[in-house]
């Protein structure tokens, strides 16, 4: 394993009376892919927003490459440029063409020249197979295409880590594949990622570790193998069974995992 990219220490977050995160800790190493899953309301999205300090934790520490983001006086704008974010609802800038959605961060944050930003943005669009749509506006594109641009927008900033907040859960089923394909390729080329998702096929293929979040705490953690073969807690078992009912994919995965184990 390489060096530590992100370290979360005992993070707590509440909104009024509602305690969303109750002491979450984990460490993310370079080139690692962490998958976070769990029932809705368990604090997954809140955790991501705590990591890039869009919604700072009430308590605890967040280290990005050993730099404490909770330290007072730190320039969070600069730090955020090193943390990419891909949103459930894409959040593309509606008034900008695909290419400008991707290049605006380089232009406005990194002060890159227009020509250089454009060529870098085109490269990023190429990486998500959207180069030929560069001049389209978000509203002219399908959800899957928009999400790929969302990924390119994060990618082009060359961040230390990219956070994915349920990137496929707002997509029509037939569009999920194209986005997962891009994410698989990114994971395999060594992009450090934290992915909140219920796509267990994706998790099985690339996750170095999976965290099951429930009621604001990490209930169980382990490799995909662990979760698909021998999950410990009843809550995880129940949850995986529910996913199975919804997506019908769990049994197949279980079988695949067992076959691999047998080899």
């Amino acid at each position, binding site marked *: 394993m390489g060096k530590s990219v992100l370290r979360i220490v005992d993070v707590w977050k509440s909104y009024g009376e509602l305690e969303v995160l109750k002491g979450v800790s984990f460490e993310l190493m370079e080139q690692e892919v962490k998958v976070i899953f769990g029932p809705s309301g368990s604090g997954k999205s809140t955790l991501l927003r705590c990591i890039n300090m869009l919604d700072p934790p009430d308590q605890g520490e967040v280290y990005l490459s050993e730099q404490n983001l909770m330290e007072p006086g730190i320039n969070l704008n600069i730090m955020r440029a090193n943390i990419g974010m891909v949103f459930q609802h894409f959040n593309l800038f*509606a*008034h900008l063409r695909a290419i400008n959605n991707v290049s605006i961060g380089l232009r406005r944050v990194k002060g890159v020249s227009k020509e250089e930003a454009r060529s870098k943005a085109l490269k990023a669009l190429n990486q998500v197979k959207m180069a030929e749509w560069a001049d389209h*506006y978000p509203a002219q594109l399908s959800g899957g295409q928009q999400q790929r641009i969302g990924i390119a927008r994060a990618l082009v900033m060359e961040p230390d880590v990219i956070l994915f907040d349920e990137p496929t859960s707002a997509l029509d089923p037939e569009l999920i594949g194209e986005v997962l394909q891009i994410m698989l390729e990114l994971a395999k080329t060594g992009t450090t990622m934290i992915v909140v998702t219920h796509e267990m096929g994706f998790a099985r293929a690339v996750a170095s570790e999976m965290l099951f979040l429930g009621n604001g705490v990490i209930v169980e953690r382990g490799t995909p193998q662990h979760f698909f073969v021998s999950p410990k807690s009843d809550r995880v078992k129940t949850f995986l069974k529910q996913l199975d009912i919804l997506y019908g994919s769990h049994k197949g995965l279980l079988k695949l995992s067992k076959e691999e184990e047998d080899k």
Partner: protein
Amino acid sequence: MMFQALPQEIQDLLTVLEYWDEILEGFIMMIWLYVWALVIGFFLGLFLAILRQYGGAIISRIATGYIEIVRGTPLLAQILLLYFLPYSLNIPIERWAFYTNFRISDREMTFILLNPEILVGILALSLNSAAYQAEYLRGAITSVGTEQLVAAQSLGMSRRAGIVHIVLPQALRRVIPAWSNEAAYLPKYTIVVWYIGVPELFGKAHYLVFKEFIPEATFIIIAIIFLVLISTVSKVLDVIHKRTAIPGL
């Protein structure tokens, strides 16, 4: 005689139109007040809308307070208050004026650019319009949604950069249909400056009514001038709205 064959109504209209130079002076004054109030009101309104939306607890309340006071009181009261304010504060008012003379065919016309009354008129109309424009703009900013700003910040943009480069370009496009209400109301509001003695279109109408005593023809002509102006403004804004529309939306 041919003119005797014309019906009385037409003759009345022609009599009023004989004063086209007076009407033109009034029209220019009305446009002058309108454009200043609309433009100053826009920038002030944008400022207020941003303060109300993003200003935090205290500043946001101050902006809201201003907007509610202005929208909740009559424009006429505001303009008279502003007009009499220097007198009640015992500030001596000097008479001054910037004006320009011009001639069209045989008529000599004077256009006063600025004097104390016109200044009060522009100020009152701008401060009033700003409150209404602020609310249209705030509605548009709200409709863009917080997630666009979150996305901008996630790229490392400051809140201010996100507002300027991401939220406002979208809000300003979205605001046009609602904002055209203000652009259509404001010319009609300018007539209140008649009360403080600014010779705009409505003031000229009163002058003509006293002089010739044909109120029907006079006010019909004035009404038609407003109608043509406001229809043109609406049409232009409609075209701008379509031209600036985001493709696909």
